């Protein structure tokens, strides 16, 4: 049972990460559409923010692994 609960906890964290990175992606695409010359800088910032948010989601995965 604890295994299933841990898996559910990890899935909820993944929902948060998906929403967050989705918003980053969408605002990055809006910005690139507005100003294509700044595309490289925007892409760089997008990848960095995605990595940071993914870090937070993976905290939750680690906690789920420990709780199992």
């Amino acid at each position: 049972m604890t295994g299933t609960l841990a898996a559910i906890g990890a899935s909820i964290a993944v929902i948060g990460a998906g929403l967050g990175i989705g918003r980053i992606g969408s605002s990055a695409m809006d910005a690139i559409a507005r100003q294509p010359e700044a595309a490289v800088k925007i892409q760089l910032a997008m990848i960095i923010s995605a990595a940071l948010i993914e870090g937070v989601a993976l905290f939750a995965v680690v906690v789920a692994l420990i709780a199992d």
Partner: protein
Amino acid sequence: MKTRIFTFFFILLLSILNVQVKGQEEHESHHDTASEHNEEEFDASSFILEHISDSHEWHILTKKNGEHVSIPLPVILYHKPTGLHFFFSNKIAHGHEYKGFKLGEGDYEGRIVAVNESGEVDIDNMPLDFSMTKTVMGMLGAAILGLWLFLALSRSYKKTGISHPKGIQGFLEPIILFVRDEMVIPNIGYKHHERFMPYLLSVFFFILINNIMGLIPFPPPFGANVTGNIAVTMTLALFSFVIIQISGTKGYWRHIFATPGVPFWLLPIMIVVEILGMIAKPFALMVRLFANITAGHIIVMSLLGLIFIFDSVAVAPVSIFFVLFMDCLELLVAFLQAYVFTLLSALFISLALVEEHH
């Protein structure tokens, strides 16, 4: 020239370590003499875990009849009653006991425990394990690779001077300049950046080389899960933490213990919060790197384990295709995590170098 000789001898040493052929495990109970292979069920989670976790031997391959071919690694133990011990891990392989030490089971899974002469009693003084395990050998391999690269770099600079880059300079100089101009100087500023460049460059290349070596499965010393070991990332985060605190100016400590503009009755809470923040930032560094790399390895292992769960070769092309895709993603994550670790370390150092505003 010297590094080449050193590297050659290190590789020679690695190959001289006797490649030990292990005997069969005790899963003999289901052995069907009529069929070719063992009927035991494939345990996916233990398959994944044993490829991710550290071990006292370097497992190369398992032959069809179940024999393991692995390189035994040195075991260095400090046991309080008996002192320092040094032996190779083939002495305690698969359950054997050597000089009162054996690999623990159950609660002590994966650790080396001390046993009495009488039975299987584990004493209160557990041996301190300083062994050169698989992770340590992987780290040493990465260190040698890094040393080779950077000593070659410095030698080529000595020969040609700072003119147009050629050879290995053309490969490493853009990366080093990227670290300096995009990560360190924008945060720390031009005045103090040279103090921290050695540490930040070292941490960047250490994480990068170890991440990439963890992705290549073969031959040893590649394929050791170094940065996916929380002890390693904890040490790296500890280095960052120590450097941040050491380089803290008076303004930094004032921000923590007497944040300006805060009413005095709020100060006790603010101090606790600030100290928690001080610890949480390197903690986040540690968990982020560990979780990203370990998650990548677990995904690759799971996709490969699909072949064994379905027990058919037809799954193999699909599975390997997905594994290739995940490996490309993992390569991106390897670079990205090195970048993020170094960037955040530089950022935290810059926060510690805050000058007094008045």
